[in-house]
């Protein structure tokens, strides 16, 4: 910008105050990557916008908010511990071996998801063999929980782990619940624990299958979930 100010520099104030319409805000953010003047101006004005965060009369937060927030946090922290330290870490990229819906074109993924859901994916899709006693199968995931969400059920010596990726958080006031099902059992699915997703991922220890062949996921009310599923499963994976 040698000699002349960038014509978009007036938008810097609207940007730091978040007063630009969303599309313009995004466009200006992109513009910042290529404009030194505007970047410098944003840096200068951000100081003021940060300072203004503190410029309001101070009140005490009602204790009810703390109770609500911390009950969710404690539940999710406990579940995270149960799921293991690496539960919310992204898996290393495996470009040469893509499984599930992630590597498909949108239309194909959508069509496949629909077919899998309609058919119930009775047997699942065997995607790889992880050694002499382990198999991994992909499950079906309802698209409402993530357009590119994937589910993989790994079974080793009768015990299973469900790996989910690309999942949205459950709706407000609800938590994901795991179920074990056997189509031949008239009593229906058995509750197998609650879990949360972090950064769209979860690695859930299903435990011993004990003859059950299908793992389901629904979202149920916080804080304790339900004894029987109250919603249509959003994930279904079979051994």
């Amino acid at each position, binding site marked *: 910008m040698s000699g002349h100010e960038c014509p978009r520099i007036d938008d810097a*104030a609207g940007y730091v105050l978040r007063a630009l319409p969303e599309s313009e805000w995004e466009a200006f953010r992109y513009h910042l990557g290529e404009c030194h003047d505007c970047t410098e101006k944003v840096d200068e004005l951000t100081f003021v916008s940060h300072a203004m965060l503190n*410029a309001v009369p101070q009140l005490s937060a009602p204790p009810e908010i703390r109770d609500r927030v911390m009950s969710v946090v404690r539940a999710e922290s406990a579940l995270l511990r149960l799921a293991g330290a690496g539960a919310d870490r992204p898996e290393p990229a495996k470009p040469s071996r893509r499984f599930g819906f992630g590597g498909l074109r949108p239309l194909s993924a959508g069509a496949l998801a629909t077919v899998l859901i309609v058919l119930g994916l009775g047997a699942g899709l065997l995607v790889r063999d992880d050694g002499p006693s382990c198999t991994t199968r992909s499950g079906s995931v309802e698209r409402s929980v993530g357009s590119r969400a994937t589910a993989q059920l790994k079974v080793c010596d009768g015990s299973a782990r469900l790996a989910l990726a690309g999942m949205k958080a459950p709706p407000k006031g609800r938590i994901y619940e795991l179920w074990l099902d056997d189509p031949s059992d008239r009593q229906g699915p058995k509750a197998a624990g609650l879990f949360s997703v972090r950064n769209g991922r979860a690695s859930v220890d299903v435990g011993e299958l004990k003859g059950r062949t299908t793992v389901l996921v629904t979202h149920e009310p916080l804080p304790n979930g339900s004894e029987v599923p109250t919603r249509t499963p959003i994930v279904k994976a079979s051994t």
Partner: protein
Amino acid sequence: MQLVRRGEAPAFEVVYERHSSAAFSLAYRMCGTRSAAEDVVQEAFLSLWRSGARYDRARGSVRTWVLGIVHNRAIDSLRRSVVHDRRRASDEGIEERFEARDRTDVEVARLDEAQEIRQALTTLPVEQSRVIELAYFGGFTQTEIASMLDTPIGTVKGRMRLGLEKMRSQLGGLREVMP
């Protein structure tokens, strides 16, 4: 914050205790009702809990990070609401019922800082402070403000920039109160 990143609930509770009142104060100032402010604070802290890894110390204090998220959530909430000039008809007496009581040295320093910032805002020409307040605390876009004030959008943009630049020079000696 490293413990929060690792999913430690007690560590998060410390963050909550330290910043929840400031978060509620900001949300209430923006939303104008207790219930909306509570929703904003709850959403913001759960979002913080689930995205602790995104905190970047180089970009400011935890407090600024927390309040920045509250500010964004409050704007989202305001823009979702059908009636945009909803606040002002605030919950009666909430300021008295929830006025912060005990003040530590850090809080006293923050009160002084807040006073200085408010002072800087009030010394601006009224047309500049008005557009800044409507945008920052009201969640209105420049286009909406131009329409409300029946003023060309270019004028609104110019006033916003000039106002912030004046505040920047007035607040030049201000340093963020840690933690």
